């Protein structure tokens, strides 16, 4: 555990000092803020006060965009995880220390995952802000229906964690960060689009199940389905397993 914590600290330190982290974080928050801000202004300007407006619908819409946004941004966070070590030749050094491949894999995954949790958690301030302006008759935390918001955030973490695990694997295959990013985006798109394969054929439900986006839909709507949780945890485990195999095989050489 101490080795993993040390790796997490080291990785997060690198991220906090990297331009790419702040650049893409800003773009992500700007786009999300833009989407929700525009929708809010259009809603309020276009509807009479007290009309059938629901802040909940606004929040749900915000989370529904996270799926495609994370697909675009996370590769730039995960691309350096292993590729940089390979390029600089520090991977061999890492293996000379009393650290196993599994600890390296887990440490790097958790570092990226924690950063993902932090950046995607920041937009949760938006429903908090909106709570000030709705249903003044109710107590502050009763103004919004928060459990569906938490369900959606859980979905974001599971979906994001899946992307991070896959990105880590692709990063371990190459010393070139750009290729790692491109492979990651390709992988994410593959698992996003596979749901529409086999339309009309008996295999269609199978392809739909494999689609990473299919399992995100219920979370956005405020529903937690154990089937979706199992899928995401399996997906994360599989790609971490493959990443670990890849990292360890390089440690042997």
């Amino acid at each position, binding site marked *: 555990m101490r080795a993993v914590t040390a790796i997490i600290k080291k990785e997060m330190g690198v991220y*906090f*000092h990297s331009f790419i*982290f*702040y650049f893409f*974080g*800003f773009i992500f*928050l*700007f786009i999300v*803020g*833009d989407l929700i*801000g525009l929708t*809010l*202004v259009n*809603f*309020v300007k276009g509807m009479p*006060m007290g009309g059938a*407006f*629901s*802040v*909940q619908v606004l929040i749900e819409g915000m989370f529904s965009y996270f799926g495609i946004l994370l697909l675009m941004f996370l590769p730039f966070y995960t691309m350096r995880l292993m590729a940089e070590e390979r390029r600089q030749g520090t991977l061999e050094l890492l293996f000379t220390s009393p650290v196993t491949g599994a600890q390296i894999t887990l440490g790097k995954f958790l570092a990226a995952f924690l950063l993902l949790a932090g950046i995607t958690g*920041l*937009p949760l*301030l938006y429903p908090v*802000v*909106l709570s000030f*302006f*709705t*249903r003044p008759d109710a107590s502050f935390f009763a*103004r*919004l*229906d928060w*459990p*569906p918001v938490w*369900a959606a955030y859980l979905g974001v973490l599971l979906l994001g964690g899946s992307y991070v695990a896959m990105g880590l694997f692709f990063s371990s295959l*190459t010393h*070139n960060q*750009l*290729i790692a990013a*491109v492979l990651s985006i*390709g992988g994410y*798109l593959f698992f996003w*689009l596979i749901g529409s394969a086999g339309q009309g054929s008996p295999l*269609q439900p199978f392809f739909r*199940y494999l689609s990473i986006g299919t399992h995100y*839909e219920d979370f956005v709507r*405020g*529903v*937690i*389905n*154990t*089937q979706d949780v*199992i899928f995401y945890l*399996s997906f994360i*485990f*599989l790609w971490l*397993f*493959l990443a670990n*195999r890849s990292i360890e*095989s390089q440690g042997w*050489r």
Partner: protein
Amino acid sequence: MRREQAADWTGIVGGIVLLAGSLTYVFVREWTPTVVGMLAAGGLGIAVYFALSWQDLARGSGGRRLLEGANIVSYTLVVLLILGFANYLGYKHNARFDLTKEKLRTLADESVKVARLFQHPVTVTGFFTGKRNNQRDEFEDLLRRYAAVNPRITYTLVDPERDPVTAQKYNVNMDATVVLETAGKKNSLTETTEEAVTNAFLQLAGEEKTVCFMIGHGERTPTEFKDQGYSDLSHDLLEKNFKTRTFELLKEQKVPDECTVTVLAGPKGHLLEGELALLNAYLDMGKPMMVLFDPLSDSTAASLLVPYGITVRKQLVIEPMSALARLSEVAPLIGLDGYNREHDVTKDIDFNTVFPIAMPLWLASPAPAGVTLTWLLKTSPDSWAETDLTKGTAEYIAGVDPKGPLTLAAAVTKGNTRILAVGNSAFVANSYLKEIAPNEIFFVNGLRWLVGQENLISIPVKQRKSQPLTITDAQLSQIAVFFWLILPGAFVLAGLGMWWRRRGL
């Protein structure tokens, strides 16, 4: 070094082409030759990159590499098997937790009971146009819940614009049409609320109803394929679990027992006393009947409705409003406020219906004792009933021609007896059925009301609690700035702070 650079560039270009192909597919949603070509070329580039890069790793003992490779493959297969099995179990035995306060994403108990009725596979095909369709997404979410309750329920979504062949096979001519099939039975609907879908399932699970069309007096029949016939209607009714047949009252001396509902579709000739007596006896038994009259016939069938407070006269409805839809004024168009929103037959009709060559129905007020008489369709106040059908032109004469609104259809209830009367029989004939789809909706709604299927299940629509924003324009601007700039900006400032701190060190 050169080979490494070549490998890198091949990988980068291949990756970009692969990405471009994927993004192209995202937008066009079709496996065009361009998309397939780009994906193939990109994949090839990536494969070449790996092939060139891994040649470096080909050094080292062959035996050990082989063992390592075999190790990885076998471990991976085992992991895939275990995860696959875990997911299979999770798929078969899953639990859903709807965290919304109003339980928006949970089926009502009635829907769950109905979904569980089916012991044979049920296929649901939803026809929705457009790539981004909120109604389709909501409907898919609803169907997934039914499928979760009963895995025998499966669904497919078809875009009629991209797959017109399937749409034609299912006779679909309206967007948001859903067809349900099971064990040779079919049902279709154009509403996608939970109540409508559950009722459609219930009707599908129920017994097939028989609609009997009386013949022998010049009526329209379900076996007639010409313009004036009802063959298309008959075909469509079958899809809604209504079988059709004809009967000759004089020959059979009664309405056949298998008839769930009887239709008199525009009789032209007179009915004999004996026939009228048989039909009256049928109605007295509490059996349902639909009677469709035409203005140019003076059949004695109209006398059936007199005891129930409905009379007809030889009049023709003239509706000037029809000209707005480029129709003749003798084809009255029913505007959205011409439907009785209190009655099950017409409460949900949101489209215009048209009744070519129609006559008004005159409802007694007050209605006869024990009779509930309700108008269903009304023409506009600008319409009138032309009483002189000999002159060949329509001209309103005050004091002679009754002024609108005129009743074109009415529903009668007396005890268990239900009658639906319409002053037109052409509205669902072959020549009009496909052109004016809402006409069929009205007819089918009428049938369902007559056989008591109008509101089998009532499921209150679940709605989110309204959360209106009490906000001034100034506050709205401040919030917008916070969302657009302050939060993202704070992130950038944190980065700048880190950079400055590092410089300082």
